[in-house]
């Protein structure tokens, strides 16, 4: 199967702080692939590299066969028109209504007549169940509704690649399940490819085809949802089952408590 996204030996550092260290990853066309890991492990940075907002310090990211870091701004924008991205908290334009948010890209990038933009926008809103909320402003939407509107906006131009940055963060169980279903169904209905960055293990394992697990800037394991659930790797096991004890320590490293309190002995 052809790969839409190929990440080859990618390293990236913010100034001198390395974030990604030699990442290799492929995302086949038509699949929903999840990137999981602890906060700060480099998942969002990886999405930004795929979207071309950042350039790798080593290696290359290829989307539809083209290395993103070699594109000039015009080419990059042309590529981004085929991408959709759902940001962690929706990132809806607060000065525009729900309808205008979804219609935004159509108005910016196409010469379609307003009547057609209206029909297409209502169809996108209908797909996420919010046609009735078209006149509401973002401040009038709940967290789950805002995420669904942002999803409708992300798929407004029927992208080939949809990226989700923590789509489940801060949602109630019903909204969480709705967003999960929408990610899977929209991907299949549009014939798109999706990358879901998340640390919501249980919800994402239900909907994804393949999972990459990251820790401290490297891929520690990868496999299908079933492989991940049955993994015996200590880090993956601790992460999937939410255990306090394991390779990820409860205490942030620092001086021992006894030392901090001026007592005799100490532990880290």
């Amino acid at each position: 199967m052809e790969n839409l996204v190929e990440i080859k030996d990618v390293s990236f550092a913010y100034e001198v702080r390395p974030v990604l260290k030699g990442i290799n990853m492929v995302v086949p066309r038509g699949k929903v692939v999840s990137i999981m890991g602890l906060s700060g492990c480099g998942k969002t940075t990886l999405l930004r590299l795929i979207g071309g907002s950042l350039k790798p310090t080593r290696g290359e990211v290829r989307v539809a066969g083209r290395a993103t870091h070699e594109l000039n701004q015009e080419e990059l924008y042309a590529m981004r028109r085929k991408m959709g991205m759902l940001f962690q908290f929706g990132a809806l334009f607060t000065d525009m209504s729900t309808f205008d948010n979804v219609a935004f890209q159509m108005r910016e990038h196409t010469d379609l007549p307003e009547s057609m933009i209206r029909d297409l926008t209502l169809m996108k809103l209908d797909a996420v169940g919010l046609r009735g909320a078209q006149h509401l402003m973002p401040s009038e939407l709940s967290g789950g509704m805002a995420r669904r509107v942002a999803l409708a906006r992300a798929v407004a131009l029927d992208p080939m690649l949809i990226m989700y940055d923590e789509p489940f963060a801060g949602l109630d169980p019903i909204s969480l399940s709705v967003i999960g279903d929408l990610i899977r169904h929209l991907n299949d209905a549009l014939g798109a490819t999706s990358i879901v960055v998340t640390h919501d293990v249980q919800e994402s394992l239900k909907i994804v085809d393949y999972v990459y697990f990251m820790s401290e800037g490297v891929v520690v394991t990868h496999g299908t949802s079933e492989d991940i659930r049955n993994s015996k790797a200590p880090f993956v096991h601790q992460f999937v089952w939410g255990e306090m004890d394991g390779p990820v320590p409860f205490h942030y490293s620092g001086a021992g408590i006894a030392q901090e309190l001026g007592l005799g002995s100490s532990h880290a």
Partner: protein
Amino acid sequence: MLDRLAAPLRRLGRQCINAVWRLGYASRFFLFVLMRSGTSFRRFQLVIKEIYFAGVLSLIIIIVSGLFVGMVLGLQGYETLQKYGSAEAVGTLVALSLTRELGPVVAALLFASRAGSAMTAEIGLMKATEQISAMEMMAVDPIARVVGPRFWGGLISMPLLAAMFSAVGVFGGYLIAVVLIGVDEGAFWSQMQNAVDYRDDILNGVIKSVVFGVAVTAIALFEGYDAPPTAEGVSRATTRTVVTSSLAILGLDFVLTALMFRGA
């Protein structure tokens, strides 16, 4: 010992380098705004929307302030001029003060506090809530789509607000001098008409307000775009907009006055 002496020098040097770097960064940003202004002219309704936010919504504060400044000028002017038997010249004093100095300067200071701070806070919050990143990911250039229309909207609004401030100020002076104190109405208007020169006074005032408009809007937009995406970052950027804009207005006013009115 040497280290202790060198530390403040090092800090001063670092601050100077940072200031020069920031100035260069701001100039590059301003250049980008100008280069990517095509969208603003192709879709002028975006600029009109910003004229409404920056200009029309600032009208109340401009009109009220202009009226009071004009009234104070009328009172103070009459008080001084009547000692020399030239109370009728109060119209001239009010009009020249407003068109040459107070109109452009006070209107620009109010514009910086009302519209400039709002621009910084809005763009800073758009950045903090990832709206700017979202726009970039949708292949829409935020400098062309968000910053450009605000710049031109502010630039067009500023001279109109300054003109409105001066006009209302003159009316305020008229209310005090003619209606309240009883200065001769004909003398008030005719002396003003004779003394105020279109090129030396009105046009120079307009030029000043355009320059202040560029300065305030550019500072406000840069501070917003450069603000760290946190509540504290946006708050500091908004404060910096008001402080830097106010100092820039007063500094530029001195330079422009020196250039315009030398030998006049």
